[in-house]
């Protein structure tokens, strides 16, 4: 019985208490790293922006966690040189395995420095379009217009063609309009001009562009290009289309429809 108690005591002293100490140190380390990273983020966010602040604070947190783990290993009496040697060998293996992650990480750092977009911008990458939710170390999150979250690896953002729709405060709205061949092209263009002038959302500078593009299969084709506030693009498109339709009806101008001529008889 006494031997069992002694054995239990030894086990407690040799294994359980050190294990609890390691756990406590690890929890403390994680808490300190998170706390400092959060303070750092709050301090930097206002000056550098949320994207840069997040990248820096996460890097600092990662380094702090590594430091705590190294100190833990040393505290446990393990020879750190041997561990590092083993880590070197393991590092090669891990390096091969984590090539993609490293590439994403480096691409993420380039994105933070280059800033082709920022949180809140409307971007389009590889068929995905939406508002940038956050730029993380390995990936960027986009909230699409139908409220889905899309995770795009930073490497893809660095390599793909990226369109930022909110880079400039104004944008050109291009509307293609087809009109029946029987109509007077000059009158149609005058109606476009009147409608644009009457619409307060359409800028008068840069000047709107009205182009007679060409002769289509069953209609004359026009391009109406107006400049507008980027935040009013869709509203301006809708109001222009409504106004053009109303003016066409007023002036008796026909919108074209697909025509098909059928012949019957011998030889057809």
């Amino acid at each position, binding site marked *: 019985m006494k031997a069992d108690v002694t054995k239990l005591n030894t086990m407690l002293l040799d294994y359980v208490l050190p294990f609890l100490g390691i756990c406590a140190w690890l929890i403390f380390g994680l808490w300190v790293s998170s706390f400092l990273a959060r303070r750092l983020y709050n301090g930097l966010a206002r000056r550098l922006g949320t994207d840069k602040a997040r990248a820096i604070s996460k890097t600092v947190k990662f380094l702090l966690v590594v430091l705590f783990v190294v100190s833990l290993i040393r505290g446990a009496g393990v020879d750190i040189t041997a561990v590092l040697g083993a880590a070197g060998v393991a590092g090669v293996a891990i390096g091969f395995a984590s090539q993609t992650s490293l590439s994403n990480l480096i691409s993420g750092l380039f994105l933070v420095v280059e800033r082709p977009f920022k949180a809140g911008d409307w971007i389009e990458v590889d068929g995905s379009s939406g508002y940038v939710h956050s730029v993380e170390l390995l990936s960027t999150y986009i909230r699409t217009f139908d409220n889905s979250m899309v995770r795009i690896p930073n490497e893809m953002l660095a390599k793909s063609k990226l369109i930022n729709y909110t880079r400039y*405060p104004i944008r050109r709205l291009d509307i293609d309009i087809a009109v029946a061949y029987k109509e007077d092209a000059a009158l149609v263009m005058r109606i476009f001009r009147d409608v644009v002038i009457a619409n307060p959302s359409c800028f008068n500078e840069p000047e709107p562009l009205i182009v007679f593009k060409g002769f289509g299969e069953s209609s004359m084709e026009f391009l109406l290009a107006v400049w507008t506030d980027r935040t009013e693009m869709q509203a301006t498109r809708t109001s222009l289309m409504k106004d053009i339709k109303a003016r066409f009806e007023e002036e008796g101008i026909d919108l074209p429809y697909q025509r098909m001529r059928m012949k019957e008889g011998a030889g057809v």
Partner: protein
Amino acid sequence: MNSLWVRHACVEGKTYLCAAAQLRLWLKRNSQGWLVAARHVTESLFEELHATDSEPDPSEWQRFVTPSETPDVQLVPVLPDRPVVSRPEARIEIAPRHTGRFYVTIPVWLRVQVGLPAPVTLCEFPTHVLSKTWFGHPAEEGEIGYALTTRARQEVAELTDVEGRAICPISLENNTHETLAFAQLLLSVRHMSVYQTADGKLWTNECRLGYTSHVLPASLAFGRTAPEPAKASRLVSGPREAPASGLTARVIASAIFKSQF
């Protein structure tokens, strides 16, 4: 016109209507505050606030919960919330080392204030529907403003049809040795006040622009009081943003002359 900008006492539960250029404004006082409705029409008309039986569509009312001890409402003329890009109807050239003085009229906005004498602003509406425009190159720095075509009148006596507009006296100093073609300019109206003379005309502070080179931005200075032709006027609304010293640099940078592109 004079009576549009004076204080009105409104009876609770009664609807009031006024017309200021293209704006039609309805007001109604209830036990907990005010109801306001606004609509823009194409026809320009000026009518002081008066009781009416014509009500706007119920969905047009905006409700404001305010202290309701005083029945008074004041309609205040203020300058637009964005800069105004003013372009003369005809090309104007200013000789070298010469100063041109012009009067540009700016359509005012109507601010609804209640709870006098400590006023609470309910809302603001433009009296004219102005198109927006861009001042600058599309891919470079610039500013969105309201587009305005001006006759750039040069005599005070010519300023007759200015109802619903504030007259802004502008001095353009051409400090170069070349003729200056005045194509258009950006007026930072948020730094200007509105004054009213006894005849009901509205004025802004004087705006002095000094052109030194086509590369450098023009210097810009605002008069601190009412302009010379409106010396006996009273201040009706202050600037939206006081022209502070730190802000001056940005104002100067934005006050550039440019040719059409």
